[in-house]
């Protein structure tokens, strides 16, 4: 975990630097802790075939060009070209400030350079390859647009998950991610009014969100920071305990409504947080009343000594004990109002501290922060960073995500099947993914994200065109 932190931080530091050599990266990877059994062929050796035959570069282009292609008169034709791509080549070499004319050019570069990882940066005022020509000028080289991005990583939940730590991920801790998706998706849509949100599995143990509305792309760093602050409740450690900053706000109430059933039904039983004294102590520490802590602890100790038959029922029952104990104090007339309030607050804070999404806010705050592109392959696990729909988050199975070797097997099976039947049509270039299990993920991407996004983009360009037409022309 410590090393993963370092890795992120070192990267962050680099990204803060406007002027930087294109190639260097004293980056270090955390020791591999993958769920996959070791493969005969290292992932990196499969990447050329993946980029060449399967990687859906055309769809990536259609997304990132935001309708600014030659089909539209009002389009900004250099839009895609000003977007930064960063390739991480084999051996941890960072190559920043790459840019491409279109999807085909991106595709060619991928096949030629075979990066282990692709990051997407902001869209700048000028082509990032030509940034040096603008260095030192007032308003020289600056980010113009950037999706609002979020990164949530299960390593940040290590103090509240008991099934594993670090790079570990399993069906017992995926629910943390599933609820994070629901909370954030609701806030981004209902509070901030965003519509085009892409959710992506990050390849190992986390998720990314890309908010792609024009309004989101045009946010300043300060505005991004304010959204990140609005969405975070964990404010570091204070007085030796996690500090949770809640406010009486409708968005917090909405989150609480989503979190509570999930906490009781999923996390408590699955993570077994109330079954042994070390864990329940940290849960109970949120209740500022020694007596309650003591009573419950000793009751549960006694129960444990007798043995627990049904762990799930026991977890539920014990949370009920906690709620009952608080309710008893709150309903006692003689008790001081301050304590009642503090107990109710503690109960709420406990739930938020354990299950409210823990954002890596640094990722969201700055326009020039890089984020791994969707549809990359994670170099350690070989899993593809697949998009998924927010509503499907609870049933998403990180273990069932297709790996690059699996996709390549499916692809070559299809190809040889076609070769055996001379009548069959050859596969279209750029559509290899349609014959693999990536197809279902891409259907989600295209139907629930790309199509509405393109429709909105065309709509906007259309209204721009109408406005332009309404203006008297000064061309003469």
């Amino acid at each position, binding site marked *: 975990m410590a090393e993963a932190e370092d890795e992120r931080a070192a990267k962050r530091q680099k990204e803060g630097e406007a002027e930087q050599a294109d190639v260097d990266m*004293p980056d270090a990877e955390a020791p591999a802790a993958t769920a996959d059994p070791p493969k005969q062929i290292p992932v990196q050796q499969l990447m050329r075939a993946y980029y060449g035959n399967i990687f859906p570069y055309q769809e990536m282009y259609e997304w990132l060009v935001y309708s600014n292609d030659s089909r539209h008169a009002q389009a900004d034709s250099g839009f895609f070209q000003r977007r930064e791509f960063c390739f991480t080549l084999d051996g941890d070499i960072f190559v920043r400030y790459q840019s491409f004319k279109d999807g085909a050019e991106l595709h060619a570069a991928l096949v030629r350079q075979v990066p282990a990882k692709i990051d997407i940066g902001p869209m700048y005022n000028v082509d990032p390859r030509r940034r040096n020509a603008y260095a030192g000028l007032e308003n020289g080289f600056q980010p113009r647009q950037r999706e609002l991005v979020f990164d949530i990583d299960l390593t940040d939940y290590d103090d509240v998950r008991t099934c594993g730590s670090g790079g570990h991920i399993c069906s017992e801790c995926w629910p943390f991610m599933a609820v994070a998706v629901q909370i954030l998706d609701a806030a981004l849509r*209902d*509070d901030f009014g965003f519509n085009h949100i892409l959710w992506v599995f990050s390849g190992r143990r986390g998720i990314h969100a890309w908010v792609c509305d024009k309004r989101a792309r045009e946010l300043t760093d300060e505005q991004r920071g304010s*959204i990140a602050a609005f969405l975070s409740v964990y404010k570091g450690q204070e007085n*030796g*305990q996690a500090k949770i900053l809640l406010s*009486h706000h*409708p968005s917090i109430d909405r989150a609480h409504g989503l979190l509570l059933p999930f906490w009781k039904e999923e996390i408590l039983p699955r993570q077994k947080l109330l079954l042994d004294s070390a864990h329940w102590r940290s849960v109970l520490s949120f209740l500022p009343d020694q007596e309650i802590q003591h009573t419950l602890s000793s009751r549960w100790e006694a129960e444990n000594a007798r043995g627990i038959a049904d762990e799930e029922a026991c977890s539920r029952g014990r949370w009920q004990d906690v709620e009952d104990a608080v309710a008893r104090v709150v309903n006692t007339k003689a008790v001081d109002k301050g304590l009642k309030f503090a107990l109710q607050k503690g109960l709420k804070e406990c739930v938020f501290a354990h299950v409210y999404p823990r954002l890596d806010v640094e990722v969201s705050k700055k326009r020039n922060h890089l984020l791994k592109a969707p549809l990359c392959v994670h170099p350690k696990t070989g899993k593809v960073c697949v998009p998924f729909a927010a509503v499907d988050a609870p049933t998403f199975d990180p273990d069932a995500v297709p790996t690059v070797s699996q996709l390549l097997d499916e692809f070559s099976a299809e190809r040889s099947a076609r070769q055996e039947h001379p009548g069959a049509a050859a596969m279209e270039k750029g559509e290899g993914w349609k014959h693999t299990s990536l197809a279902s993920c891409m259907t989600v991407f295209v139907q629930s994200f790309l199509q509405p996004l393109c429709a909105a983009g065309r709509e906007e360009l259309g209204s721009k065109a109408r406005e332009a037409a309404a203006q008297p022309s000064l061309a003469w």
Partner: protein
Amino acid sequence: MYEEPPEGEVTIEEIERFALDRLRVLKGIEDAKVRGKKSAELQTIALELVSTHLKAGSREASRWKDAVSHFALRLAFCRTEDLRRWFLAQECELFRLRFRDELPSDQVAFIRQQKLGFQSLDSAEFEELRPLLVKVEQGIGNRDFAATLLQGNPSDAFFKVPFEQVPDLVAQRKVLLRKGWAYVSRYEIAHLVGGRFRAALSHSLNVTHRRWTSHLAADEADRLTPIVESLSSRYLGEDYDSSAGNREVVTAAQLPALARQSFPLCMQHMFNHVREQHHMQHQGRLQLGLFLKAIGLPLEEAMRFWRTEFAPRCPGDAFEKKYAYNVRYNYGKEGRKSDYTPYSCLKIISSQPGKDQAHGCPYKVWSAAQLSAALGAMRLPASAVHEAVTKAKGGHYQLACASAFEGAHQCDCDTGINHPNQYYDESRKALTAQHEQQQQQQQEGTAPGSGTKLPATPATQLRMPAKRPAPTGPASAPPKMSFQTS
């Protein structure tokens, strides 16, 4: 909104005098904020400052002075990014505080007059959102206002703006958000107007900067330029960058002793953390690394220190690959190549260390028990430990740190602590003074008249305690100058 510069004639002397007066106000506001004053108190302080320094004979004259001084400082503070940022922050704070002082009705009138184009709510929308609006207002403590909302629809109670315009309110969850709209109550209009003020001023500062560098500076070389250039360098606090004077050079070998004697608790803790864990995460490396740089540790020594401490977990090559870049970066040798300044208390307090991270301000982050233990280990008198812990508990982290300083050095700290490097400097100063006195006493005792030899380097001081009998602990105990009794 200071959109137009004032018209009329003004003497150079007047410009300078007015500008200095305004600078006193802005600096005063900054100081008050650093001391942790909250909004109501801050407002009183700011208004007092304005009335002492910016008031003139008549309303007209005050207005004139306000405008002249503002534009004069614009010139003075447009020249570098840092100056612009400082000026922008202080002017916005001043604007907000003064705006708040106006009656709500005047505020609304101001909005109308400035044609800022904020939309009021129609009654259907208000009815729909009423419970939510009430909830938010209750949450931020505007109970009376919430009660009036329950009774009816006061006109102009809320303005509806895109959320992008009120980042402060959004960040603190002080505003209702729905579908991208922020519903700002009339009590928070200051933020809304403040946002516009900030944007406009920020833009003008950039424009002024361009004009100034392109021709004004040269044209005004004998008239305004000297004033402008001197103004911005006055009154601004020390930022402990490497250009600040000739510091004594400190070596890696001296660090352990210096840490024990003169590091504030945050740095002492991080220093010990590195030595025990042989590892430190990124934020910590920045906080400690920049501090060490500023006490006079040169790059080569810093490299030696980090490499040695990290060696058990991260030998040779791995260190070069992972961390050497980082150390050189701190010294402005990599990346953006800017010579970074060490973190101030404010910055350290506002950082949010996660579990098992060592950076941040211990007075804020730790529990009372942890604090007492750590301060006790620094051999502070029990009374000082108690005082520091109580202050920390009350949220006065910097005062707590000052108490610890007083306890550790047996002397008063009347300047307060607002920078770890200030703590260090004060500590060195106090220890040197005590050491000199002590030596003088010794010499007066043994060889009167030869008391001219002064300690030259910290290293000579460090050996001092060993020479003296240590009544309470091992020879390495910090020199708790007990010379009064000897």
